[in-house]
């Protein structure tokens, strides 16, 4: 790269960081993104999967509500198959506060969220499993969003325009001269490298405070863990929200062939604190009963938690406060102005729904600080794979949704060799062709899982993890690590049939991986 072209380093491969690198690429700037783990290894891979209409924030957090509905409209247009426009309902039960319903409607109106009253009988015809005691129902434009898919689209688009994306690279130190950042030091499996930079954008989500420390600046944040339960079936066809002040377990999101019930909210100390407790599982099931009676008797595949990266200017560093009172609006930190350190910007808070807006805001400031002018184009530029021109048979539709720009090359493989059509993962219908095509990029089992959804269905890898390991020739240690990661999510929900299946899976893996077994 020539000495005159700007050198920008983006920290964090979640939705926000990837949004930043895509935004930069569209403005003609070839930047570098570093991510300590895999893409979406942080909160963006551990969230509820809801493309918010903004309804949830209509009363308490009008700014966030407005950001959500605006971005909801944009993403439906540009993100294509990562968004499934399932729609959503807010429902109030007879015991719920009618005053809240009124202020909610007013809030939605103020934020510009379209709300349509629905006859409860009509609603129950559409959602037969929902609570029959429902008194009031409104339809809103909620949708579900697949962040793994979104990440791949952003990466494909940015790379095509020359961006550099380095996974498994962690920022460990900063270089500064005369009150300006001039570079970062990153560590990977091979050692340390230095990346020169005129501008660094910190999009490290819940790790943003830690990254701030690397640069010697303090970013006050509150980390709030939220837990989810995944069911093995689609319990509703649209998103179901309770029409009450935001609380635990009050939203059910249909996600592909599963449903996700969430969330809880507990203050934690570290971004890595993502264990789900039994009490949280019990709480979610209990609250979920109000949305779908009998939900606690349904089959839960796994539990997982993510950590919200909330910016809290009033809080003491790491301090505790009712996190639901903190805005979900985005926060842009100009460290030149705040801390007297040039060349560093942090972008935190927000939602996955608003990642594009966060990116736009951060890049606008970065360019201004660097004295550059280029207009944002992400609002109107479809992501790669957003539109497929030719209609395909239904059974390939799922593969196409997942594959986006890779789809044609996978079709070619399938035509060339019938054995490529073998299903490596039956639950998620992932063919060998798809794995092989992906493995040309990364052969890590966990990358392939996120890219294809392999091993994330009802069997949780019991019948396909070994196939994946065999196909990419992953060492036994990697397979052990992989099933251990799957286990972490299953453990909190092991009862009934699911406990039985886990015991069977353990026996099979223990045999095939022997003697790792003797001293596990």
């Amino acid at each position, binding site marked *: 790269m020539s000495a005159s072209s700007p050198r920008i380093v983006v920290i964090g491969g979640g939705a926000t960081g990837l949004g930043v690198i895509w935004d930069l690429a569209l403005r003609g700037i070839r930047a570098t993104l570093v991510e300590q783990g895999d893409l979406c290894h942080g909160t963006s891979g551990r969230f509820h999967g809801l493309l918010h209409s903004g309804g949830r924030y209509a009363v308490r957090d009008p700014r966030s509500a407005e950001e959500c509905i605006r971005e909801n409209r944009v993403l439906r247009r540009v993100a294509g198959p990562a968004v499934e426009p399932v729609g959503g309902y807010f429902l109030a039960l007879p015991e719920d506060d009618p005053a809240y319903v009124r202020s909610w409607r007013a809030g939605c109106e103020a934020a510009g969220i379209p709300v349509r009253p629905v006859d409860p009988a009509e609603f129950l015809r559409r959602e037969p499993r929902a609570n029959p005691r429902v008194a009031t129902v409104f339809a809103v434009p909620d949708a579900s969003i697949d962040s793994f898919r979104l990440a791949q689209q952003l990466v494909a688009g940015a790379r095509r325009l020359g961006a550099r994306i380095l996974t498994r690279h962690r920022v460990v130190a900063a270089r500064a001269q005369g009150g300006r950042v001039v570079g970062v030091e990153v560590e990977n499996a091979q050692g340390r490298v230095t990346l020169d930079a005129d501008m660094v954008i910190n999009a490290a989500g819940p790790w943003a405070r830690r990254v701030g420390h690397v640069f010697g600046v303090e970013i006050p944040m509150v980390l709030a863990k939220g837990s989810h339960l995944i069911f093995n079936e689609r319990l509703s066809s649209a998103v179901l929200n309770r029409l009450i002040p935001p609380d635990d377990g009050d939203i059910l999101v249909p996600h592909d062939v599963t449903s996700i019930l969430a969330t809880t909210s507990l203050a934690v100390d570290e971004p890595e604190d993502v264990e789900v407790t039994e009490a949280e599982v019990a709480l979610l099931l209990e609250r979920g009963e109000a949305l779908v009676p009998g939900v606690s008797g349904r089959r839960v595949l796994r539990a997982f938690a993510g950590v919200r990266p909330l910016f809290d200017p009033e809080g003491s560093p790491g301090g505790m406060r009712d996190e639901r009172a903190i805005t979900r609006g985005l926060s842009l930190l100009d460290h030149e102005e705040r801390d007297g350190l040039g060349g560093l910007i942090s972008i935190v808070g927000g939602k996955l729904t608003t990642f594009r807006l966060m990116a736009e805001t951060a890049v606008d400031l970065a360019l201004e600080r660097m004295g550059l002018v280029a207009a944002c184009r992400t609002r109107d530029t479809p992501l790669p794979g957003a539109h497929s021109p030719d209609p395909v048979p239904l059974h390939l539709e799922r593969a196409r949704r997942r594959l986006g720009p890779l789809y044609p090359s996978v079709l070619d493989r399938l035509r060339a060799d019938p054995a490529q059509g073998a299903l490596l993962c039956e639950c998620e219908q992932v063919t060998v062709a798809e794995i092989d095509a992906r493995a040309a990029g990364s052969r890590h089992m966990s990358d392939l899982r996120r890219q294809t959804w392999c091993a994330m269905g009802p069997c949780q890898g019991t019948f396909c993890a070994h196939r994946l390991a065999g196909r990419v020739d992953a060492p036994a240690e990697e397979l052990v690590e992989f099933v251990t990661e799957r286990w972490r999510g299953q453990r*909190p929900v092991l009862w009934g049939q699911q406990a039985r299946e886990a015991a069977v899976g353990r026996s099979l893996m223990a045999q095939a991986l022997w003697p790792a077994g003797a001293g596990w």
Partner: protein
Amino acid sequence: MVKLDSVVVGGGLAGLVAAIRVAERGRRVCLVAEGQGMLPLFAGPLAVWGAGTGIDAMAAALSPGHPYRVLGAAALRAALAFFRDLTRRAGLPYVGDAEANGWVPTPLGRRYPCRLLPERMAPPQGPAVLVQLPGFLDGVARRVRAALTGAEPVVELEADRGSQVGTGWDSDRWARFLDTAPGARWILERLGDRLPPGDTLLLPAVLGVEGHEALGRALEAASGRQVREWMGWPPSPPGARLRRALVGEAARLGVDLRWGVRATLSGGPHGIEGVTVVPKPAEGTRGVELRAETVVLATGGLPGGGLVVERDGSLLDRTLGRGLAGAGSRLRLFGETPFAAAPAFAAGYPIDGRARPVDASGRPLYPNLFAAGRAVGGYDGDREASGGGVALVTAFVAGGEA
């Protein structure tokens, strides 16, 4: 009401072996089972003790509650000998050494230790040649050979254009194909000649279920080599073969086999007094009452469905309607990693020297109730590689008492 000498509840490895043993003693026995248990998933080789130690040394070193320790080394030896005889009679001879481990290659290229193996899975003699079936994902030959020297040649069979063969079939689908005449022809044509040099032809364990014996011999004749199978992934033909052999033997001995029914036991002061059997699904149907002098509980524990983990973390034996000691909480029941030692994986009834479930003070729950297989607790078959051996010795002793 039906009167019998003995009822065995459960139709997995333990239930079938126990019923055979009871029937051999000339008693009228009925086996009732809801499903097929773990045999369709059973890999084939019989794991007795993963660590290489001989039986006496092993039994002496075990903790007091371990079923091997409770039943003793002599019982284990007798059970293994019994199983050898039984499988020979049934046409599926298991070979090997009770005192030392043999091994079988796993799909991930490890050696799984086992003491008795079906002949077709015995360790290969001399240099081997591995066969990769087209589209077969449950065992990649290049990986499996890591269990051997790692340098063995691999013969890659191609999928047929225009036919379904090899489009991602699992082991069961292959076995059903190879059980047919066109299937046998397909494989014999491809592995008849022009093979790289080697003494043993090593394939995944898919060489048929019903016709496995004849097909194996035909393949040995056509290729001029010994034919061996490595361990696969469920659905597992070697498990299906073993099930077929045991069911055949039980039927021949006059065991009354009732599949697809769920049993509940009712106990009284003198012991188990009745077995109520209802077809599954059970809701609302009236059951048949069985009366028997003795009952064997071979209901498979956690994986077999005999023991259920409740949402509060307690353990329930559905058949006896009895709670078992849990771990106080669900999270404590299971370990932090899948393979860690954890209460759930050793859950089941402690037994006495006659294989009777006992309470905390060591007294039998009922004088006429015996337990076998995973229904028995106090061992971790996965970590010890002992599941097959424990199923066998408990079934052997329970079947000798009931």
